[in-house]
């Protein structure tokens, strides 16, 4: 499919959208401006309202308050078939009584395209997903990964300006997931539409997105690019939900910008930021280094003793869990190349991290 065939993406605006089911508020004051052509991911744990948000763009659900605009126009009064958005479902939702060709042709037939045009577009779409030879198969006659790609072809064949994907890789095994992530990246480069992607897999979100919206309990917890979300979690929820992290409690030390790290019994200083007082800090496992015997710690770094409690061997990296003096566990990891040798359980180690790598967190 050539870029010229496809319209560019549309903007999508959530304006203070709320949605409740009876007494349950599933989405609360949800405001979000999605740029044209952006790849935006809604990331959050189960029940955080991701599907609800997506279903309101698709038109399966109406907001109970607020409004949603596509290209600046409210879509509240449009039924799903008039919104012109494509959608890929978690369980594919291929029509079981139609073969691959007819499945992909469906949106075009609904738009009353000519038989010639349908044939052309379906073939192009199937080529894009590398399934040109599978047109005559029934959905039961192809593998899970292939079904997923048919669902994708069906969702983009009519050149929608917005493409919604609700955990499209959720049902695939790890290997296939990673392969399909690369595929989606490729589609994304070839078709220009705005993509809104839902997942509870943070790795997937970090890999694919231009921007990530971290959601919890129907609220937006943080919005940012993958690096920002990973390096500077805005709060405890983001810090714990995305990637592995160590959370250490902070006790105020009387002076502004000075604390004691409870677990380490060590002072910690940072220029006091505006906003709610931080109650904890987070430090990524890869930012914690092991000091070899006799090695001096870096200037200003925070060093502490621990004993190895658990070792997880991953081939290229080794993840350790070490017990601190007060019994708390701290995670750190080493790359095989850098590690002199794999440690043993109960071995004593000295660990250190630079204060600049720690992120201050307020509770939510």
């Amino acid at each position: 499919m050539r870029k010229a065939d496809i319209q560019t993406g549309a903007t999508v605006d959530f304006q203070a959208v709320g949605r409740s089911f009876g007494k349950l508020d599933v989405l609360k004051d949800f405001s979000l401006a999605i740029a044209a052509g952006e790849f935006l991911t809604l990331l959050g744990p189960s029940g955080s309202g991701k599907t609800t948000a997506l279903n309101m763009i698709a038109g399966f659900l109406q907001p109970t308050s607020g409004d949603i605009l596509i290209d600046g126009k409210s879509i509240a009064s449009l039924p799903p078939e008039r919104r012109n958005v494509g959608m890929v479902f978690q369980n594919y939702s291929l029509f079981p009584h139609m073969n691959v060709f007819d499945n992909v042709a469906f949106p075009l037939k609904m738009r009353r395209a000519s038989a010639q045009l349908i044939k052309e577009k379906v073939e192009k779409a199937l080529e894009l997903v590398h399934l040109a030879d599978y047109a005559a198969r029934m959905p039961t006659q192809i593998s899970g990964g292939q079904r997923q790609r048919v669902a994708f072809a069906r969702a983009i064949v009519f050149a929608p300006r917005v493409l919604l994907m609700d955990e499209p890789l959720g049902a695939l095994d790890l290997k296939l997931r990673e392969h399909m992530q690369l595929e989606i990246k490729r589609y994304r480069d070839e078709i220009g539409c705005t993509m809104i992607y839902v997942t509870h897999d943070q790795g997937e979100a970090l890999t694919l997105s231009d921007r990530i919206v971290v959601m919890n309990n129907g609220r937006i917890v943080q919005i940012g690019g993958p690096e920002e979300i990973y390096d500077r979690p805005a709060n405890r929820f983001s810090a714990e939900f995305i990637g592995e992290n160590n959370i250490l409690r902070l006790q105020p030390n009387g002076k502004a910008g000075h604390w004691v790290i409870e677990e380490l019994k060590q002072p910690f200083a940072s220029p006091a930021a505006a906003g709610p007082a931080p109650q904890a800090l987070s430090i990524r496992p890869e930012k914690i280094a092991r000091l070899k015997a006799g090695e001096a710690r870096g200037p200003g770094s925070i060093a502490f003793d621990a004993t190895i409690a658990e070792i997880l061997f991953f081939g290229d990296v080794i993840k350790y869990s070490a017990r601190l003096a007060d019994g708390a566990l701290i995670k750190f990891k080493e790359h095989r190349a850098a590690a002199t040798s794999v440690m043993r359980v109960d071995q004593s180690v000295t660990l250190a991290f630079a204060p600049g790598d720690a992120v201050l967190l307020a509770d939510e």
Partner: protein
Amino acid sequence: MMMNEQKQARSEGSAFWLLVPAILLLIGLFGYPLLKVLITSILDPGFTLAHYLRILDRPIYLTVLARTVEVSLIVTALCFLLGYPAAYYLAHCPPRLRTYLFLLILLPMWTSLLIRSYSWIVVLGKNGVINLGLIQLGLIAEPLQMLYTTGTVYLAMVQILLPIMILTCYGVMIKIDQGLVRAARVLGASAWRAFATVYFPLSLAGVSTGAVIIFILAMGFFVTPALVGSRQDIMLGNLIETQINQAVNLGFASALGLLLLAATIAVVMLFRAVMRWRFSHASV
């Protein structure tokens, strides 16, 4: 598909013994009597085709057969028209309400066919509830002739057979993934087109099961037409019954019975062929 078939073949092989009791029962209670009927129809006392020639000899039998098929087809169609929407409602209504509605649908099935046919006499007869009511209201002077008409035969047969269509359709509809209908909608189908292109084709299995069962049962009806129909409304079943109980001509009754069976099988096979053709050409 191929893998499925292999798997199926394997499990069928290993679990075949589960079928044995049912097969024995069928052979004993169905195969044997059928064979007996066949033999009775061609031995009287020696080999003869006289009974079959008699069917062809007088137009009455084939005329009644044609009417039996016609009535059964119309009843089946009416059951579909009334039962399909009802089943759809049941499959999509709140579960609590569904429980009560099911009770209403199933209750009549616990009542005997004879009683259900007789009760129409109480309702529709000259001194029946409806006529008395209408006269009382001053809307009519003379009682209406509702009983002993073709319409009443349809009414009574549909009333008896309708639950079957509702149940078979419901059973299939409840399993249709609503996500498919949503997918159709967001891909550009109006509510009506999503129904026509996705929901209805997927529910056809229930329709055809119900239709086949209802048609087969309707072909064998004789109590209901005898009780509520006119003389013109007799079905092949009534003729068979007459031959057995009044003429005591078992040979001829057997021949008529086999005619009914053959006609039923022929129509059902035709129906299935049409359905299969529809399916292999399934497209939007």
